[in-house]
């Protein structure tokens, strides 16, 4: 009907072009989600005060029916220098060197409706950095002997991060419900207290036929506030004063407690 209306009002040459363009647009729209992917997090700002012990972030939104979903929470890529342990003289375990990791996020949390390898192709996983394997491919590790060595040490890096509760992958924990022709999704993700202050990106991927058909993202800012912020800032920016205050406080506490306690005996 739209095409017919346009045909009655436009000149012949322009009409042909416009009809072609509209046809292409309609074709594209049918190939992608018919409803736009949305994402909302319950926190856009997590405040770290003295009693902070982590948080939870709930992510919800709508997607097109029939799509699978992947939610990724990650910090921008950073770098790490970590000590590696190995055997000396074939007997003793100790630090034997240092490894530098580049382009790795400080926090990486993945949730999905199904096993990721079943719903998304390897190429798409690499393109969007979804999954440890894809993350490992784009990580630079120095020094490593070869690709197998790199794979081994990236695996150890993931174990280290998982032990610190900063890396996690889970599947099947996104709840879905169909309402008024839209797929509503919801996931609750624990936010570890070990996650440093900074900006984190929460990304939703709508997946169909092993491809990402749409993405949406939101941000979460984690920030120290109040006295926590003051102490951290002083430790970094007024280090000499901070050191003196720490020492004086310790001396005063030591003397103070000594004055409170009474001597109970004589010299030996």
């Amino acid at each position, binding site marked *: 009907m739209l095409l017919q209306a346009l045909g009655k009002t436009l000149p012949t040459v322009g009409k042909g072009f416009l009809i072609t363009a509209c046809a292409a647009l309609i074709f594209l729209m049918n190939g992608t989600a018919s409803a736009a992917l949305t994402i909302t997090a319950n926190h856009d700002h997590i405040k770290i005060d003295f009693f902070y*012990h982590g948080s939870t972030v709930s992510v919800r939104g709508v997607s097109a029916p029939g799509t699978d979903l992947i939610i990724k929470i990650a910090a921008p890529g950073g770098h790490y220098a970590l000590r590696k342990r190995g055997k000396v003289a074939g007997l*003793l*375990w100790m630090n034997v060197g240092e490894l530098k990791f580049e382009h790795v996020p400080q926090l990486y949390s993945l949730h999905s409706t199904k096993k990721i390898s079943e719903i998304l192709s390897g190429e798409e996983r690499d393109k969007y950095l979804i999954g440890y394997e894809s993350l490992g491919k784009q990580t630079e590790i120095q020094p490593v002997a070869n690709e197998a060595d790199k794979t081994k040490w990236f695996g150890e890096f993931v174990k280290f991060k998982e032990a*610190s509760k900063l890396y996690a992958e889970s599947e099947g924990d996104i709840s879905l419900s169909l309402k008024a022709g839209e797929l509503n999704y919801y996931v609750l993700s624990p936010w570890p207290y070990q996650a440093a202050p900074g900006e984190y990106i929460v990304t939703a991927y709508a997946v169909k036929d092993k491809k990402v058909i749409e993405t949406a993202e939101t941000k979460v800012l984690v920030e120290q506030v109040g006295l926590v912020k003051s102490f951290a800032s002083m*430790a970094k920016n007024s280090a000499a004063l901070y050191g003196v205050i720490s*020492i004086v406080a*310790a001396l005063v506490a*030591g003397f103070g*407690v000594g004055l409170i306690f009474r001597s109970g005996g004589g010299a030996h």
Partner: protein
Amino acid sequence: MYFYLPVALTSINVLVPLGLGLAVGLLSGLFGVGGGFLMTPLLIMFGIPSTVAAATDSNQIVAASTSGTYAHWRVGNVDFKMGLYLLAGGFVGGLFGVQGIKVLKAMGNADFVIKMTYVLMLGIVGTYMFIESISSMRKNKTREVKEERESATGRFLRSLPLQTHFEKSGVTHSALVPIIFGCLVGILAAVMGVGGGFLMVPVMVYILRMPMHVVVGTSLFQILFNCIEVTFLQAYTNHTVDFMLAVLLLIGSTVGAQIGAIFGRKIEGEQLKVILAVIVLAVTVKIIFELTLTPSLLLGQSGGH
């Protein structure tokens, strides 16, 4: 209840540092050790980054050793004169030790040397203290042997120049003796990253022949200044002192040091040595296990040693 630590960037149950502080403070008051060789690994176990654990522990030791020194001073158990000589030697030794670590790190052998130093020093000190204390407790027979040893040692020490009487300890030594041994302990303490109390105590007992209860108070006095220096340098250079964590630790440790000082006066010197020797040997065994058992993680945080 959990507290967030602004420099360690982690959260901790408040009972953990309070309890750890109390336990390690008790050891400080009892034995004259800073307790860093116990506290730092325990803090790391509870999720504190290693560099922050070591630096903040130095801050806590300032409080515990102040409390302990004060408690011991009140009952006349601190030899300030001896402490100052040991401190002078320890300061110079610390400078050499830090340079030594830099050279070892450049050669790539630092960790091996540090670990071996820990095992050897703790093992030798702990074993010697244990055997010597047990045999000293069998008083009659051993008293004669001890006197013979003192004569031989005494002759050698009396032959050195700059003889000085240390009234509180009731001993006379060349001023060079505490300075040289303080320097050796300072080197080892810098290499091992500790305050040096568990090394200084045997030096004072077996070489300087000071009474055990004066050793405890004097050792705490020396550790106090050593840790003031380390705390300032760590805060200024590395920004790794977490004041909140230090406050939680020192609330427990200052009280623990007082309690330790009170208990210490009720325990005989030889018994104190035996208990300290057992603790040092237990730490040695723990380190040996860590060296020989496969770790669960092959990667760890950088910094400290």
